[in-house]
Structures are given as C-alpha cells and as structure tokens.
C-alpha cells in the first residue's frame, strides 16, 4: 500500500506569501495539489517585524491552499530570506589516519566536522552547511573514499542568520499547529529547480529579485559556492518612483509595470507617458526618461552590489559563470532586466521559465522558490531520502471528512 504525505512549501515574502501544496507518494512522486498567493503584512525586507500581522497573512494563505487542495498539510518546508543571512566559507582538514594512506569514512567525517566546527555568536544560528568538493593532497575529488592520499580537505559554505528572525518564522508556522521539516534559503530553493545539472556544472548565477530583497546563488562545478542577500528589491523601485515622480505608491507601481524598463535608453528623452491615460482631471504627462533613469539606478545598484560581493570572494569571472545569469522573482518580469544584467554584470542573462512539468500558471517566476522547496521535500537535502510517515488511523478517518 502506498504511503503519501502532504507537504506545504511556504515562502513569506515582503509583499506576498506563496503557498504550494504537494502530495509526495512513496517518496518517489510529487503531485502539486493546491496553491495560493496572499498579500503579506508585517514583513520588511524579508524579515518579520510584526509577528501578529504576518501570522494572519501566512495562516490565511495556508488555509486557502488547503481548501484549494481539499487536503491538510502534514509538514512544512519554509523559505528564508533577509539581510540577516550571512554566508562564510569554512575549510576543514584532516590527515589520513590509515597506515596505507587510504581514505576511510572516519577521515571524511573528521574533515566535515572540522569544517563545521566554527562557533557562531549566541544570537545566530546555522541554516545551511553546503558542502563543496573534497581536496585530497590538493587535488579535487568528488568522493575521496578508498582513495590514496595524505591530507584531506573539504570546504563548506555555511549560511547563518539571526536566531530571533529565524525563530519568528518558525513561530508563525507553529501558530497554525504545523511543524517545519526544513528551512531552505530562497536563492537555493529557486536555483534547485531553475538550473539544469549542466548549468550548475559550468557555472551559473541565479538572481531572485523579490519585493524587499534580492537573493542570489552562484553554482560552480555543480556545487553552491556562494549565496547572498541584497536588501533591495522591487518595492524599492516603486518607492523611488513614488518619491521621484511625486506620485502615490499605487501610481508608481502602475508606472513600473506599464512603462518600466530596467535600463535607461537615450531614446527615452523625447517620450512622454500619461499617468492614467484617459485625460481625466489629475491625469498628466511624465517623461519616460525620468521613469527609466530611476529604475536603472536601483537595478544597477542591485547588480553592482552582487558584482562587488562576488569580486570580493574572487568568484566573479565571466568564464567561471559560463552559463550566465538566470533571473527570477517578481521583478524579473521588468522589461529589459536581462539587458541590464549584460550591461552591469557583463554576463549573458535570461529570465527563468518555470519547470515544464508543472501547470502553466505555476511556471511564473513568483512560484520558483516554492517549487524549489517542494523539490527539496521530494529529494531531501541529504543524500538519503526521508521515509514516509505512516498515516494514523484517526488521520485517515478524519481525512475522509473534508467538509471545510
């Protein structure tokens, strides 16, 4: 008899909450059975500031998705973002212990433990320890087990965040009596479903431009070598337009969506655009150049920060990012965003299209992170897969009574 569990993928963003419900059958198959998008409140730049308001929004979105799926969530996979997330690269090493210099499991474990040994301040907590390739006597190897060598090294990209911020996210989910099975940072979740294995191998940069933050992840040789969060997103562009053009946020958002372009072009100087477009009282003209200049400034700021961070880590090289940039998130739908990447990062870019094996409406960039969470729910972050939880008799019985 097949066992199934219903997994909820929850992304608490600055401007929206995305929930996807997936039914995982025998840890081998995934059916997406429900989804919902709700507006987000109490969240700024990806961080929860008002627990009560955020809980209301998240709980409403979860219940809407459950109602859509006619099923209840068993466990939650939660996306995490925010500028409090910081990554460090730590290297662990050990001398091969066996007299014949053949690497054993105990040596591998020792190198791994050594890489993870770094203590964090009391107010911080680890989210990920992302393993990088092993080096055996300086030579990169995928699996050092039973190979001959003297000195074994392994690197880990460790991502940690403020304990209170992470705890707030967990409390929101626990408020609706659900357990969080895993937390995955947004960029890693998006990258998992948007990139092919070959792209990860040859080098690719995934940039997820959300409302309040921009998350990125860099793959090289098939490994995640850097992640980062830039505390600037699509909402900042809207704010800038609102202030720069002296219009309300609603109008600024309308300008961004209707006329916005990610880069400034000299041809924009002579072009005017109308605020409303029906010549009613209050409707007036704005120069397109003003709009595109404001957007260009913010977008270039985002890409410049990313470029700077990659350069600091000595990871910025067009040859090392051979497959270019993959853009996702709500702001990735901004016109000319790929051209802007080419101008500011000097890399080829494309706007991500969601996986082809999901419904067309779920292929929008807004669902990338949640789809990535379901990917991890199915495959697990570890090499082994989680066994399916056997459903209790009472749960099976109450499952028959979907009278919501």
């Amino acid at each position, binding site marked *: 008899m097949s066992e199934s569990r219903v997994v909820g993928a929850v992304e608490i963003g600055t401007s929206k909450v995305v929930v996807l419900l997936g039914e995982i059958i025998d840890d081998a198959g*995934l059916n997406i059975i429900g989804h919902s998008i709700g507006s987000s409140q109490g969240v700024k730049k990806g961080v929860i500031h008002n*627990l*009560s308001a955020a*809980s*209301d929004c998240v*709980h*409403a979105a979860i219940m809407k998705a*459950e109602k859509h799926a006619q099923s*209840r969530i068993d466990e939650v996979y939660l996306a995490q973002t925010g500028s409090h997330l910081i990554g460090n690269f730590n290297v662990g090493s050990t001398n091969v212990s066996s007299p014949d210099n053949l690497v054993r499991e105990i040596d591998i474990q020792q190198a791994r433990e050594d890489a*993870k040994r770094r*203590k*964090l301040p009391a107010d*911080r*907590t*680890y989210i*990920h*320890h*992302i*393993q990088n*390739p092993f080096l055996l006597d300086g030579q990169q190897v995928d699996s050092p087990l039973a190979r001959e060598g003297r000195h074994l090294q392994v690197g880990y990209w*460790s991502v940690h*965040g403020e*304990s209170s911020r*992470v*705890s707030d996210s*967990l*409390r*929101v989910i*626990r*408020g*609706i*009596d659900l*357990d*969080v099975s895993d937390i*995955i940072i947004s960029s*890693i979740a998006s990258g*998992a*479903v948007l*990139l*092919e*294995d070959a792209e*990860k191998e040859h080098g690719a940069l995934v940039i997820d431009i959300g409302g309040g933050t921009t998350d990125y992840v860099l793959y090289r040789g*098939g*490994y995640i070598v850097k992640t980062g969060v830039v505390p600037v997103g699509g909402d900042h562009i809207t704010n800038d337009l609102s202030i720069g053009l002296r219009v309300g946020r609603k109008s600024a958002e309308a300008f961004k969506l209707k006329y916005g372009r990610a880069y400034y072009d000299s041809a924009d100087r002579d072009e005017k655009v109308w605020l409303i477009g029906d010549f009613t009282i209050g409707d007036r003209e704005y120069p397109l150049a003003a709009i595109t200049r404001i957007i260009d400034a913010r977008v270039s700021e985002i890409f410049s920060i990313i470029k700077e961070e990659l350069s600091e880590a000595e990871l910025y090289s067009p040859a090392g990012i051979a497959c270019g940039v993959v853009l996702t998130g709500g702001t990735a739908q901004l016109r000319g965003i790929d051209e802007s990447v080419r101008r500011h990062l000097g890399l080829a870019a494309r706007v991500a299209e969601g*996986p*082809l*094996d*999901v419904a067309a409406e779920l292929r929008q960039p807004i669902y990338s992170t949640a*789809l990535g969470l379901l*990917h991890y729910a*199915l*495959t697990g972050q*570890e*090499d082994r897969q989680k066994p399916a939880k056997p459903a209790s008799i*009472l749960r099976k*019985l*109450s499952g028959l*009574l979907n*009278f*919501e």
Partner: protein
Amino acid sequence: MIGRGTSKGSSSADGSQSWRELAGSPRKRVNSPQARKRRQVKLLKLLTAVLLLAGLSALVYWLITVVQSREEPIQLSTPSRAVEQLIFDTDGVLPDRWLGTVIRLKQGTTMMEVDIHAMKQALENEPQVISASVERVFPSSLKISIKERQPVLRMAVQGRDGQTEQRIVARDGTIYTGVGYARSALASLPYLQPHQRSDGSIRPLRGMERVAELLAVARQQQPEFYRSWQVISLEHYSGNPSLFGEVIEVRTRAGLRIIFAAATDFGLQLDRLQVIREHVRARGNPAMERIDLSLRGSAAVQFRNGRISSF
C-alpha cells in the same frame, strides 16, 4: 525538473547551533483567527471520526447480539404444514416403534423439510428390509411402505460378550437380528449348521434358495414330520447343487439324520422317505440312525442296532 537533477553534497544544517534547536524551543504560540478556525475544524473532524468509530462499533456489537440471541433457525424453505400422520405399511412383522428409531422424524418437521430420499436409504440399509418407499401424502401425511425378508432358518452365533445370540437367515442368505417376530414363530424354525469354507469362514451363505425349497416342500407334504426337524446341516453343501456329492442333511429331535441330494427333486425324495418310514413302522418301528436319500435309484437306512437296509 522537480525532483530530478542532482545536488552534490549535503546542505542541511544539523548539530549544534542549527536552526533545529530553535524549532524545539517552547515559546508562546502566535495565534490568529485562521489558526483558531483550523484547530476547531481539526477538533471537529477528530470528534466526528471518534463518534463514527464508536457508532460503527456499537452497530457491530448490536448485530452480533441480535444474531446470537436468535433461537429459531431462519426460515429458508417455502411455508408448508408439519407432518401430522405416518402411514406405515409392511408385508412383514416390523412394528411402528422400530420405524420411529430408524427415520427419527422431529416433531414439527414440515412436509417439505422431510428428505424422503435419505429416509428411504436409511430404511433400506436395515437388513430385515428388502425395499422401502416413502411418499408425501399432502396435506400432512407421510406414507412408508416396506417389503421385508422372510425367515427360513435360525442360527446361533457367539456375540461380542461371549453370549450365544440368535440370528435369522432369510431365503437369499441374509443373516439378521430379526425384529417383531413372535417367539413361537422363531421356535418353529430349524437351526442352521452352515457350510464351513476351507479358510474356516461361513459367510457368505450361498445356495439358500435350494434349502428354503426343501423346507417349503417338506412343510407342505409332511407337516407333522417337518415339525421334528431340528437342525439343517450344510456341512456337505457348498451352495452349488450341480456339483457332485452336494447333500443337505436334516437332523430330527429324535436323533435321526436324513441326507437329501441337493440336485434331485425334493418331492420325490420326501415321497421315498415317507415310504421308508411307513415300512419301518410296519416292521415294528426299530430305531433308525441315518436315512440316505442321495443315492441314485435307492435309499439306505442305518438302524441303531447296526443293521443296514436298502430300499
């Protein structure tokens, strides 16, 4: 794409200072109207499931109780009247009470519930019965007709407890206990001394029709003399009269032994016996020990005084 592709190395944060340590911290739950509603629905579902389970259990218990307390078997056949009368017809001596022990008909059994084929089989399994017929006579009678075996001889056999028991021998050689016969009727039957086979066994009794014929002719022609016949010995009669030397020996109460040829007409032999008896009586009626009627064309008489005469 989802669930496919490979991720090199693990990425989950376990161990000390992992976010999983925060997941277990008992901090106050953040409530929301939606969460409260979800909890209520969950509780309601659970309650409904428990009530459903309890209801199902009660229903099963009730059904078991009802089935167990039902004393009368469920009526499966079409309604019919109970058997009220048994019409018993026999050409022999079997009594009504014997019939009751064989057919074992329960009170209240309806006409259609009676298995007449099984009843006929049970009756015909009785050794005293040659054939039986069972008929339903609607509305409420059962007619049973029996054809019985007729007794020809009787046998004394040793029972399991060592006691001598009496058995009846029918014309077809069947040996049976005999139910319903008058004591006087059985007392008039001569005893049978069966033919003993080479292996010591006496059954099956064969050729009894010929013996029965002898007895019938004797009873008819010389009824007085026949009453003195005590034992019919088949010591020298294997059951096949056509074989050479097959004789039937009769022993009378006076100790006279009479030898009949099994293959020869019993009427002629009995006529000759009559002549011999009258002749001997006319000669002073000396005591005879053996009369042999099986000799071809003559008869030999052995007297007690040792003299032998030929007739």
